[in-house]
């Protein structure tokens, strides 16, 4: 088959501010064979061809293609939102939309009773009382193992088990890497933009002290559900705001715009003139994301 003739000479003009080079599978990246082949490329008849759809990245003599849509690749320090899928003896397996399940050790969480408490056999037996299958947590990537799986930790007040709210799953490449991923928006709702594409929207828990108590709160009686604890119920207005924000996030995803607090705030403000349920229509999605589009292009 004839290959497309669009060739890109990767030379000295490639800098941070230069044009972005998009390739599709089968596109020729370069015919210069002096380059090392990175991920997403292969050599065929003396030409370097892209095997995935994405952006060409060049580091000195290494060329690779970063795919636009792929599983989440974790890096140390990333904030992730994950779901517990397995409870093992001293650790939990967490689903973070990456190639391998992530691991959360029992020693990596904050237990009630102080940060420096030793983990005892008692803790191992009660492991399901802390976190069981299906629970959602926010955590930070502590360490990337040799096989690529992530080790998580929740050793900070802002991480821990997530209570009432909604989860939205978006492609991980659309979540912009920022200094802060926990945002308390002006509308009274807090949003956690996990780097892995899991976005958690929930009402703001006002008291910081109270927030610590709610995380990992052990049930009052053995076997009792931890849901009936003293969390104040979500009001109808808060639910509407949460649903509106959820639909805004989905609209931004649909229009392939990067997600960070500015784009979400702009989209939320533009969406005020519509009803929450109308935000699911494609033409409305286009309309509310126009102002965010200009910010998100960078």
């Amino acid at each position, binding site marked *: 088959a004839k290959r497309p003739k669009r060739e890109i000479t990767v030379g000295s003009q490639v800098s941070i501010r230069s044009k972005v080079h998009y390739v599709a599978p089968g596109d020729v990246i370069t015919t210069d064979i002096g380059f090392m082949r990175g991920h997403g490329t292969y050599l065929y008849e003396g030409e370097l061809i892209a095997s995935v759809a994405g952006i060409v990245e060049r580091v000195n003599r290494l060329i690779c293609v970063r795919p636009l849509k792929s599983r989440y690749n974790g890096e140390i320090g990333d904030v992730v939102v994950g779901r517990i899928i397995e409870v093992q003896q001293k650790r939990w397996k967490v689903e973070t939309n990456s190639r391998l399940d992530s691991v959360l050790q029992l020693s990596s969480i904050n237990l009630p009773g102080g940060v420096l408490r030793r983990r005892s056999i008692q803790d191992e037996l009660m492991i399901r009382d802390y976190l069981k299958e*299906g629970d959602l947590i926010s955590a930070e990537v502590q360490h990337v193992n040799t096989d690529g799986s992530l080790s998580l930790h929740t050793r900070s007040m802002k991480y821990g088990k997530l209570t009432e*709210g*909604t989860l939205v799953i978006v492609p991980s490449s659309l979540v912009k890497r920022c200094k802060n991923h926990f945002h308390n928006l002006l509308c009274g709702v807090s949003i956690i933009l996990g780097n892995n594409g899991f976005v958690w929207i929930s009402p703001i828990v006002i008291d910081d002290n109270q927030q610590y108590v709610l995380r990992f709160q052990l049930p009052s009686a053995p076997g009792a559900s931890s*849901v009936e604890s003293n969390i104040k119920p979500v009001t109808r207005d808060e639910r509407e705001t949460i*649903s509106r924000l959820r*639909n805004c996030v989905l609209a931004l995803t649909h229009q392939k715009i990067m997600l960070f607090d500015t784009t979400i705030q702009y989209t939320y403000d533009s969406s005020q003139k519509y009803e929450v*349920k109308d935000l*699911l229509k494609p033409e409305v999605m286009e309309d509310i994301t126009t102002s965010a589009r200009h910010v998100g292009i960078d």
Partner: protein
Amino acid sequence: VLFKMAYRTLSDHERSYITRGVQEDIRADGRGCIDYRHFELCTGVVSNTSGSAEIKLERTNITVGVKAEIGNPLPLQPNRGRIEFFVDCSALASPEFQGREGEGLGQHLAYRLSEIYQNSRCIDLESLSIIPGQQCWILYVDALVMEIIFCCMES
């Protein structure tokens, strides 16, 4: 026939958030309990049928064609016409439908549809009768499920 369309575990808190929301008539995406999702409906898509339609409901895509033929009515119901349903869950609809796996769901849906349409308030089967006891119209309704995420029955 138990068929798990989308299986996802939920935490207790998420579950209670959703159920309490439904009690207040507000679902997770802001719709009320009786509000529809956005869907697109096109008619006249298949050329060699009497009538056809295609519905797209958020990544669930179903094409339906209706052909009318003349035949014999059922002996027990000589005054009414007939509707025959056939649902084909094609293999490209979902990874679970590889090979012949989709036949079970297809037969189940066809059976449910024929049960529903037996009720004369849905469609007036007596109007399909030509000569009572001898000839009637038979409507063959064929549904092809091209892509499925959920709400097959609803679509």
